[in-house]
């Protein structure tokens, strides 16, 4: 109980004193997760939309498989990436292991299925609505995907936010591929894990609250942005 109060106090002081480490770590967290988010969205959103638009054999099986990939355990993803990037691995020469890049790669793998599958779900309705018209206008597959992505962009928000949430809070994978190296690959979640291991629960919680605070800020920012174009809402 007491720890939680302590945690809040810790968080408060960390923030007001603008602890330089904290700022560095938080920025790294944001940088890694946002990069991962952008990359993942670029792949997952068109792909998910495509799954909604295009009928082909075993389509539903593929979707079931992607839904299953939402359950990829971060630790396993981390391991595989570690093995691939480690000196002895195929991409060892790139020397990416224990760099933010490696963490981004791991997170992209983790959140892509999540985003793709939410996108697919969000686009099914819209496609049902547009189906006849777009077929009738003899649009190409890609034109359909583009149209749906554009007109359905408000529905994609949740997909992106879910992906971001998963990324910013994730620790298992980035701990392995990033190594939680101080001043290099330490982010909020890994720092929290560390403090927990040390038994410094107050600080761990403090960092946790900071992280949640950041997530809230990001979401509020997006909330305001989407609000501005609320008028365009049907």
């Amino acid at each position, binding site marked *: 109980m007491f720890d939680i109060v302590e945690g809040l106090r810790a968080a408060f002081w960390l923030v007001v004193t603008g602890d330089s480490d904290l700022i560095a770590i938080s920025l790294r967290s944001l940088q890694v997760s946002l990069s991962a988010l952008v990359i993942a969205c670029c792949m997952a959103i068109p792909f998910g939309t495509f799954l909604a638009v295009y009928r082909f054999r075993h389509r539903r099986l593929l979707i079931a498989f992607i839904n299953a990939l939402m359950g990829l355990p971060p630790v396993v993803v981390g391991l595989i990436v570690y093995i691939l990037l480690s000196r002895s691995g195929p991409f060892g020469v790139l020397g990416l292991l224990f760099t933010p890049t490696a963490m981004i790669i791991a997170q992209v793998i983790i959140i892509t299925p999540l985003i793709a599958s939410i996108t697919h779900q969000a686009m099914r309705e819209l496609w049902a*609505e*547009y189906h*006849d018209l777009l077929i*009738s*206008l003899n649009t190409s597959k890609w034109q359909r995907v583009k149209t749906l992505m554009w007109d*359905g962009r408000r529905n994609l928000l949740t997909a992106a936010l879910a992906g971001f949430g998963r990324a910013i809070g994730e620790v298992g994978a980035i701990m392995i591929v990033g190594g939680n190296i101080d001043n290099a690959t330490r982010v909020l979640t890994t720092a929290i894990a560390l403090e927990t291991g040390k038994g410094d629960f107050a600080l761990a919680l403090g960092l946790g609250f900071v992280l949640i605070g950041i997530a809230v800020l990001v979401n509020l920012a997006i909330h305001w942005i989407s609000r501005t174009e609320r008028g365009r809402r049907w």
Partner: protein
Amino acid sequence: MVVEMFPLHLRDVSVRRHGKTILGPVTHQIGGSGLTVVMGPNGSGKTTLLRAIHGVERLSTGQINWAIPAAQARDLQAYVFQQPIMLRRSVADNLRYPLMLAKRPTGEIDDLVTQWLARIALSDAKSMQATRLSGGERQKLALARALISDPAVLFLDEPCANLDGRATKEIETLLTQTLDRGTRIMMATHDIGQARRLATDVLFMLGGVVHETGVAPDIFATPQTAALQAFLRGDIVE
């Protein structure tokens, strides 16, 4: 170009859904000009027929052959659905959409759009979300969106259902003009008056099959089947 496309052959086309045959078997040949009115009671298969010909309805049996390759034919058609489908964009963007697909030069697009907005009396609403339009306005917009890329074949599914007397008149004149420009039109309607005014030939559907066909105005004057006679009288059709 129209001459190339036709005649259009339907060979025992049928559409089955969940074990229920909702269209066909229909074997029919459609000529190259004029305005064909598709009539028939509710649920008789008018929409399904038009959709099948246009190619948005999956056939269960038979085939539909244009005089030109299907791929090519698709580009020359436009369809106005019974429930107008509005893109979730501004009215203007809805009109712009088919032209952008056709990659027309921007300047030309804007001219056409403004011109058509005026025609359907929606110039003031041009920047409004199309999904907010009133029932009649939607229908007008859908029609304009179909005509703006002037297609060689135009399918209309009860285009005037929600229009007021004046708008209906205007649309009808518009259609006759389009017809004169050589566009082939196939229209489903319940407004027998409108059918009489516009039809060059009639296709009477009943229970999913083509029950009677004939050239206007004769078919209105002397319908052959009892069903059509009853239908024209507005009586029970069976």
